[in-house]
């Protein structure tokens, strides 16, 4: 995969991140039930996006530094 594709994907994922945790995306997970790993869905959703954000940055950084 080339660096520019990875950059494009990272930007795309982060734009999706914005939509997912604000209106309207977050309305899909407004209810606390069901519990996910003991956490209400409404809390697990932003936590899941923190993890997606972390993985995205790790992958991006890996490709950015591959040539160095």
């Amino acid at each position, binding site marked *: 995969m080339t660096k520019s594709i990875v950059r494009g994907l990272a930007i795309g994922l*982060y734009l999706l*991140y*914005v939509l997912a*945790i*604000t*209106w309207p995306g*977050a*309305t899909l*997970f*407004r*209810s*606390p*039930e069901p*519990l996910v790993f*003991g*956490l*209400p869905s*409404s*809390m697990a959703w*932003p*936590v899941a*996006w*923190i*993890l997606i*954000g*972390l993985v995205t*940055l*790790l992958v*991006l*950084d890996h490709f*950015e*530094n591959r040539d160095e």
Partner: protein
Amino acid sequence: MEQWVVISLMVVAYLGLTLWVGLRAGRGTSSTVDGFVAGDRNFGFLIMYFVTGATVFSAFAFLGGPGWAYSRGAAAFYILSYGVLGIAPWYVIGSKVARIGRQLGQVTQAQFLTGRFRSRGLSLVIALISIAALIPYITVQMRGAGIVIDAVTEGRVPLWMGVAVAYGIVLVYVLVSGVSAVGWTNTLQGVFMIVIAWSLGLYLPHALYGGIGPMFDAIISQRPELLELPGLNASGEPWNWASYSSAILVSAVGLTMWPHLFMKAFTARDERIIRRTVVWFPTFQLFLVPVFLIGFAGVLFVDSLPQPDFILPHLILNVELPVIVVGLFCAGALSASMSTGDALMHATASVAVEDGVRPFADLDEARQRLLIRVFIAVAGAVAYFFAVSEGISLVVLLLTSYGIIAQLAPPVLAALFWRRATTPGVIAGLLVGGLTTLLFFFFPAIKPVEIHEGLFGLIAHVPVLVLVSLLTPAQDHALVESYVSPSIAQRSATASH
């Protein structure tokens, strides 16, 4: 020995350790302005990670976070939502700012902006905006420290004295060691906070409800509205999506524009360090999870608390915890307060001198350092005055200052990415954006939709910046290139020498 004596001894030991680390930190740093303000641009990954993380784990997060979870429920999840979004662009912006700062010898945000948009007036405006936003922020940290000490010593050490002791120590190490003290103490404090937040966040739900799942099941069965997004507003009514979403957006835009965080770009050893810090920042954001668990643990156990910010100390003192846990909690909360407070005091004074005074007066290095130290003491004294005065709504001030600080984002982006931006365009945009934010803050009734006033500011700001820039003459090509493509500009400068 009585419980409060044991706790006080633990706190004293902890404060002594912080002071020792802070004083030792300055050894090996040069006695220059570069050394005092930017640590000789020599911070490595570990320190940068904790310095950045300390901006998340402030007294606001440690006390305000559980307070929000307890009183406003799901509304608190906005604090979980904006951090990673806010820091991710710094992967590109931060490393570019660091490179330009190194090439042009900059140590503050205003120096960075006025390097491209040459105007002493702009420098002064940025200095004033920064100081006006930073002082309430310091005050919140100080009050946090005072509240904790007051609560665990059962009032024997009143708020004014607790703040004076904790921040007296901060003052000493920051005055002696400058930003190196901020870096090393943040590392110590960061480790403390992580351990304590997770221990308490897992322990309290287990002790009170038998686990995290059972805790939320109990809350859902008794107060289902609390956990439903977007949570409740300050008066306990359901909050609205526009306010919730715009709070996330404005906080994300404003996050890296805070001077104490922005300036740390100039402290990193190289751009790689900044990028790695950004990559690992989300792990710090996850440490907010146990903080919220603590707040939710209080929901069914504590009847309405007049000041929700006291939920954490209140729970700690009423759940019959072992004394060592209470002492450790106290040290953790002080860490949260002091690790943010020291960076804020240092940034306020650096900005006041470098951006507010130096463009107008010729100062040699020794005078600059002296003046920065004087301003650190002044900033501390002003914030102390507010911290011990009752009746000032600081959290409201703090949330509004996010709206003002967010107005620094368009000029920074324009400086780095838009060749056609001009000085008059940037000044006009900043004034219109700032004034619009203040207008909707003071007259919320005229808001056409219920969104954060900072977002109105940005909506007015950007078109003005673009329009005025296009109507005024373009900037000198070499100057523009030194910002928009710093690596190419540097290569051609090296080649011509």
